[in-house]
């Protein structure tokens, strides 16, 4: 009833933690069995280790939060050595988020990570707003995103999902460009670029100045973008942005998502993913829905 099958990802339920909100699973794995999850999305891997930005790295906003972690991670080699073997022992599918500041970084990281048996698919993070140089063009210029997708696809041994940035004028153009370049799926949305200023210091709260806005506040933007894009592409969409409960999951499916990821809500309630997975079949029952796949895009399907 809640099984979904996407390129590389055979999910017994459509709920996974979002990249960067779950590290490599060890912490939440100490609280519950990761095999309850549809999949695990791991924190962005880059070719070299990254320490990330200075602190403060998070700030609260109305129904949301800003983060500027800056892709802190131990680098692809360490991840392969220390993190993936632990996940390999689990039965849960792994979606590996990768990032970089140049095409070559992405390609090299994709090559390494996609080869690992624990990894079922790649998620190409072309949209991290918290990295200073490079980066931005990948997420905002269709041709640049397409070229990157094409090159990563050429080396990846696993299906590739491209994670889109919402900070663009035309999200459909971005989606179509990466689809044409061979993307197997889309993840949307990453965070909106935002800022908070501290009234005492009179400076931005985040050391990085700007950060990525996530949480319930951005849900209407995510729903709108998924609604628009899902009508114009044929590849599946992993939807995310403000999901807190089973109702939200259903809203994302109706908009056009085929699976969902939960980010910020984990910080509010560390058990939120298993809770949603438990609620979902109950909710579908009350709606008279026998298979969640029926709901995909129903808000716009005739």
């Amino acid at each position, binding site marked *: 009833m809640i099984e979904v099958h996407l390129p590389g990802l055979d999910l017994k339920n459509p709920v996974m933690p979002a990249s960067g909100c779950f*590290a490599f699973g060890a912490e939440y794995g100490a609280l519950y069995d990761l095999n309850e999850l549809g999949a695990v999305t791991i924190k962005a891997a880059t070719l070299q280790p990254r*320490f990330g930005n200075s602190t403060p790295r998070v700030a609260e906003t109305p129904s949301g939060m800003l983060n500027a972690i800056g892709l802190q991670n131990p680098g692809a080699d360490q991840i392969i050595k220390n993190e993936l073997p632990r996940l390999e022992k689990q039965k849960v599918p792994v979606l590996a988020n990768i990032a970089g500041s140049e095409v070559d970084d992405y390609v090299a990281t994709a090559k390494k990570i996609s080869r690992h048996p624990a990894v079922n698919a790649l998620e190409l993070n072309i949209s991290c707003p918290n990295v200073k140089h490079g980066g931005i063009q990948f997420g905002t210029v269709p041709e640049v995103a397409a070229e990157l997708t094409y090159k990563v696809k050429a080396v990846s041994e696993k299906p590739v999902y491209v994670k889109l940035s919402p900070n663009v004028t035309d999200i459909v153009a971005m989606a179509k460009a990466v689809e044409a370049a061979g993307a197997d799926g889309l993840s949307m949305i990453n965070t909106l670029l935002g800022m908070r200023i501290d009234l005492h210091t009179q400076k931005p709260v985040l050391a990085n100045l700007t950060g990525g806005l996530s949480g319930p506040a951005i849900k209407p933007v995510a729903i709108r973008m998924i609604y628009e894009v899902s009508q114009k592409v044929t590849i599946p969409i992993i939807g995310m942005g403000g999901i807190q409960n089973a109702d939200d999951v259903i809203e994302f499916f109706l908009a056009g998502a085929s699976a969902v990821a939960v980010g910020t809500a984990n910080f509010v309630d560390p058990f939120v993913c298993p809770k949603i997975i438990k609620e979902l079949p109950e909710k579908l029952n009350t709606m008279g829905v026998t298979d969640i796949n029926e709901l995909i895009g129903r808000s716009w399907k005739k």
Partner: protein
Amino acid sequence: MIQEDMRVMAHEEIADHIFELKLQGQMVQQITEPGQFVHVRISGKTDAVAPLLRRPISICSADVKSRTLTLIYRSGGLGTGTELLTHTRTGDTVDVLGPLGHGFPVSEAPAPARALIIGGGVGVPPLYGLSQALAKRGIQVTHVLGFRSAKDVFYQTDFEELGKTFVMTEDGTYGRCGRVTDLLETVPFDIAYACGPTPMLRALEQTITDKPLFVSLEQRMACGIGACMACVTQTTDPNDAKGYRRVCCDGPVFKAREVEL
């Protein structure tokens, strides 16, 4: 670590904008060290929306028999989450995640020994539970507690019951005038523990170099359990394998000079 709706047993303002909150629940059984903290979810009211993120607050003390823990926090004033928390009444429940983090190593002080406990402002609360634990092991404790002003002082008599207690205020309106560091030379000790503003901790790390010193840090947090990387701080050792520590789960208590302040 569990998530629990804990029952409010008492809640009162014990100094200017400083509140003492007593909560009852199963979680108390899991506390292993003084200096651990809890992550508190705060509810809203009509003209103030509930904040999204939890608030980290140190466990001040805990009593396993009555399954009660005590938190002491400063209300940040209108518009803050902690101000909203002040509206919680006895009998209400509060959503708490904990116990979290690594606290003060009590066994590092080999009894019989003399421990010096240094606190500043809302850094004082976790030191009370620490002092209780040390005193229980027969360790002689001396407290140096700094506050801004007379109206900010709390828990003086509680600390005095456990050991010699010096209270200082920055403006001299109560106790001795000055900063906690001014007193260090006059007090004999074998091990020191501190919690308070970063400049105070930095001064202590520079002064106490020949004896063990443990410091408890603050950092903005999201998850509170080590998964989001919000609360990291760099190690002082550039050759450290990871190069960073997470305040929420590797700390909040660290050996002096282990991480950058």
